[in-house]
C-alpha cells in the first residue's frame, strides 16, 4: 500500500465514480419501458392510431433518455478528460 501516490488514487476513484454515474441508466430504462407499455395499450385499444402513437412514444422516449445521456457524459468525462487530474 506504500507505493500508491495521489494520481493513482484519483484514477481509481474516477473509475469507480464512472461506474456509479452509469446508475443513471436505471431511470430512463424504467421510464421508456413504461412509455412503451402505455403505447402498446393505446394501440391495442385503437389500432387505427398506431402511426401517431408510435411517433409520440419515440419522442417521449427520446426526452426520457436525456438524463441517462447526462450520466453517460459524466462517466465519459471521468474516464477520458478527467478534470481532477
Amino acid at each position, binding site marked *: 500500500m506504500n507505493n500508491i501516490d495521489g494520481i493513482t488514487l484519483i484514477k481509481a476513484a474516477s473509475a469507480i465514480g464512472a461506474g456509479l454515474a452509469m446508475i443513471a441508466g436505471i431511470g430512463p430504462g424504467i421510464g421508456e419501458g413504461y412509455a412503451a407499455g402505455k403505447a402498446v395499450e393505446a394501440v391495442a385499444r385503437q389500432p387505427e392510431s398506431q402511426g401517431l402513437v408510435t411517433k409520440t412514444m419515440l419522442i417521449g422516449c427520446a426526452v426520457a433518455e*436525456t438524463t441517462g*445521456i447526462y450520466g*453517460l457524459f459524466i462517466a465519459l468525462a471521468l474516464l477520458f478528460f478527467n478534470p481532477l487530474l
Partner: protein
Amino acid sequence: MEGPRIFFTLPFFGGININETEINLTIVTLILLVLSLVLTHRMEKIPRKKTQILAEKIVITIDNLVEQTMGKRYMNFAPYMMTIFACSLIGSLIGLVGLRSTTQDFNTTLTWALATAFFIHYVGFKYSGFVGYLKSFTEPVKFLTPINLIGIVTTPMSMSLRHFGNVLGGSIIMSLLYTALGSLSSMINIPIPILEVGIPAILSLYFDLFSGVMQAFIFCMLTMAYISNVGPSDDIA
C-alpha cells in the same frame, strides 16, 4: 477512444485546425449536393422519370410532417427541417463506410441546436413583439422567471447533448465489441481476426443504422415542437 484527427492547420487567427469532422462534413455536403442535382435534373410538369417521382415524394413527406406538427403557418420551416434531417442522417450513416460520423463531434450538434435556439427566439420575437417576448418569460406565474431564463441555455444544451451522446455511446459500444472480438480471435490462435466478420453487423444495425435515423428524426421533431410552441397556433389565426 480518441478525438478527431487534425489534418492541417490554416494560418489565420493564430491557427485554425482542420480536422476529420470538417472534412467529413464537406463530404456530406457534396453527397447532398450531388443527390439533389441528380434528383432534380430536367424536371417535367408531368413526372415520368423515377428520380423526379422520388424527389417529389421526399418533398411531400417532409411538407406533410411539418404541416401536421407545426401547422400551416410554419410551412416556410420545411426546407430548414429537411436540411437538418438530411445532414444529420447522412452524417450519421457515413460511419457505416468507415469514416468518422460527423455527429460524433459535439461541435456539429451544438451548431444545429444553436440555429434552432435562434429560430425559437426569432419566432417568439416576430409574433408577439418586443414587450410580448419579454413578457413570455414571466409565464405561467411570475416567480418562475429564473427557470424560464435558465431554459434559454438548457434547451440547445439538452438537444445537442442528446444527439451527440446517443451517437457517441453507440460508437463506444461498437468499438468495445470490435476490441473484444479481436482479442477473442487472437486467443484461439487464428492469425486472421475471423470473429470480427459478420457478428458486429447485428449490433451495428441497431447502434449505427436505427440510432442514426432515430436521432435525426427526433432532433427535427423537437425543433418543430419548440418553434411552434412559442408562436400562436392555427386556431387563433
